[in-house]
């Protein structure tokens, strides 16, 4: 066995994201199906307007969060598979050299799908336990007849087994494509930067600046994740602040929890793979006498601007989304509070974000300091 369940466990952030996505989708979809069955019994005009608003909110929420999160998990999975092949090039190269076919090696990568399965499973069942409370909340004004949550096998299939299968197949196909590179490239852990980095615009750049640039360039997906993590933080925290007025405290807490989990899961995954991926370089720099702060600044600091960009996009996104929800989706519903940009919430979120982000950076720079110089030499 090449890839063990241990490698799949490292994909905990995908598990968490899948769990959040399925949780949100399961709640809204289950509710949508159950309420649709009761549609005929809604008689009041207010009830009908509320009904269509709820159905569209459900669709939007399920599509936006489910879609976004599924995309993120897919990107993360592919990133992880690529990273796995890059860092295990020697082992995989030797297997290939011994005569294992690509598909023979690639098929073992299905195990990465199990982390998606675990997440979906967890998400679905925690959603199921939350459903009674959610139904109660949605119908607090008694506009609809009372409904009880029902179990829908089709949802269980669509939200647990289907994603797990798709992700397992995705991992195998992607691994297969990547393994097609020549044996020697794998053995020597040679990557594509050759072609990409041959444009040398300013050959006179100091080493540390160059290192920062190359670190970012050779791991573009990490730029995305780090920006995404800031995006989640800013969008979800600010949105949850508005939710207290617009919806309910429970919604706000749920959103806050999902946002924070997502933001930190992605941030920590990205930062640890930055540190892991640069371990050899850092060790060599330390051997030569580069200060530990210079090393962290070069490999970690270069991601800072992207996180702030992510934060700004997240702020704009949540404002636009809520504005649309309030003015379009809930247009016919009475008593919907007015929505305006919340500067206080934005400032507080930014403050928290800077604090959290810098603490994480500090933690990882400590980890860089602790990297044993000798470990690279024992390889």
């Amino acid at each position, binding site marked *: 066995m090449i890839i063990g369940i241990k490698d799949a466990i490292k994909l905990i952030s995908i598990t968490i994201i899948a769990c959040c996505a399925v949780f949100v989708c399961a709640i809204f979809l289950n509710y949508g199906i159950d309420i649709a069955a009761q549609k005929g019994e809604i008689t009041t005009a207010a009830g009908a307007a509320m009904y269509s608003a709820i159905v569209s909110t459900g669709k939007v929420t399920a599509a936006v969060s489910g879609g976004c999160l599924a995309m993120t998990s897919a990107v993360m999975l592919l990133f992880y598979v690529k990273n796995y092949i890059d860092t295990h090039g020697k082992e995989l190269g030797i297997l290939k050299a011994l005569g294992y076919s690509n598909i023979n090696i690639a098929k073992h990568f299905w195990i990465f799908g199990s982390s998606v399965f675990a997440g979906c499973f967890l998400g679905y069942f925690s959603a199921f336990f939350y459903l009674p409370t959610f139904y109660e909340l949605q119908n607090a004004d008694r506009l609809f007849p009372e409904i009880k949550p029902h179990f829908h096998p089709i949802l269980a299939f669509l939200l647990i087994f289907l994603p797990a299968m798709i992700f397992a197949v995705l991992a195998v196909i992607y691994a297969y494509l990547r393994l097609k590179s020549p044996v020697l490239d794998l053995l020597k852990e040679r990557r594509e930067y050759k072609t990409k980095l041959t444009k040398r615009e300013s050959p006179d750049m100091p080493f540390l600046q*160059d290192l920062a640039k190359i670190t970012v360039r050779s791991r573009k997906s990490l730029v995305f994740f780090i920006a995404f993590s800031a995006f989640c933080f800013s969008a979800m925290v600010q949105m949850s602040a508005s939710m207290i007025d617009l919806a309910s405290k429970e919604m706000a807490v749920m959103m806050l929890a999902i946002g924070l989990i997502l933001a930190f899961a992605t941030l920590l995954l990205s930062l640890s793979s930055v540190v892991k991926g640069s371990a050899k370089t850092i060790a*060599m*720099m330390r051997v030569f*006498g580069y200060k*530990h702060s210079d090393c962290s600044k070069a490999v970690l600091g270069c991601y800072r601007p992207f996180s702030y960009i992510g934060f700004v996009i997240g702020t704009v996104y949540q404002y636009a989304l809520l504005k649309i929800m309030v003015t379009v989706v809930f247009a016919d519903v009475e008593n919907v509070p007015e929505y305006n940009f919340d500067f206080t919430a934005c400032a507080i979120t930014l403050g928290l974000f800077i604090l959290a982000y810098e603490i994480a950076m500090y933690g990882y720079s400590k980890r860089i300091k602790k990297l044993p*110089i000798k470990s690279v030499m024992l390889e």
Partner: protein
Amino acid sequence: MIKISDITKSYGTGGSKNQVLKGISLNIGDGDFTVILGASGSGKSTFLNVVSGLERPDGGSVVYDGCDITKLHDSELTEFRKDNIGFIFQQYYLLPNMTVEKNVRMGADLAENRDYREIIAAVGLHDKSQKFPGELSGGEQQRVAVARALAKKPKVLFLDEPTGALDEQTGRQVLDYISKLHNEFGFTVVMVTHNQNIAEMANTVVKMNSGKIAGIDKNQLQKTAYEIGW
């Protein structure tokens, strides 16, 4: 002058404790070419790492011109390596995603050395300076490592089996560059090897045997890389 006194070092604890260095004392003069010989597992690399400040000994002292590096804090030790030490390893350890020139620059920037291109030329790689390590042969990669180490103008150059992964021809070539540059710049060389013949290039040969010094020989006549056997 490096004064090494009574270095001890062990790995593991309790029953699995492995005493690797058992009290080593040695003086290395400025500009010396010292070769450390010994069987595999005799503690040569560990000794080199301790003397160069990559690892801390359990006991003893390593004094460079009056400064005991075993007493320095981590940050001071880093600073010390920056100003004094160059390294060359058997496995090269070049940065794979940087060109030859950038790899050499990693050393050069530490000493604010603007003449790194001359050093690349000095190891015969000026026409390969825009290549990546993966595009070079083993011998060429080791010459990049030589250039990188020398670009930071070290006072002492430590080499751990620099020719261990090379064939005779390229091995001689790398050693030749090292000894030429040694003669030109006059830095101190401490080289670990288990090739007896290479020892004939040194003026001091230290023989190690299971964590102890078994003998020190002085060579009156130093041979060049092309005069020694292989």
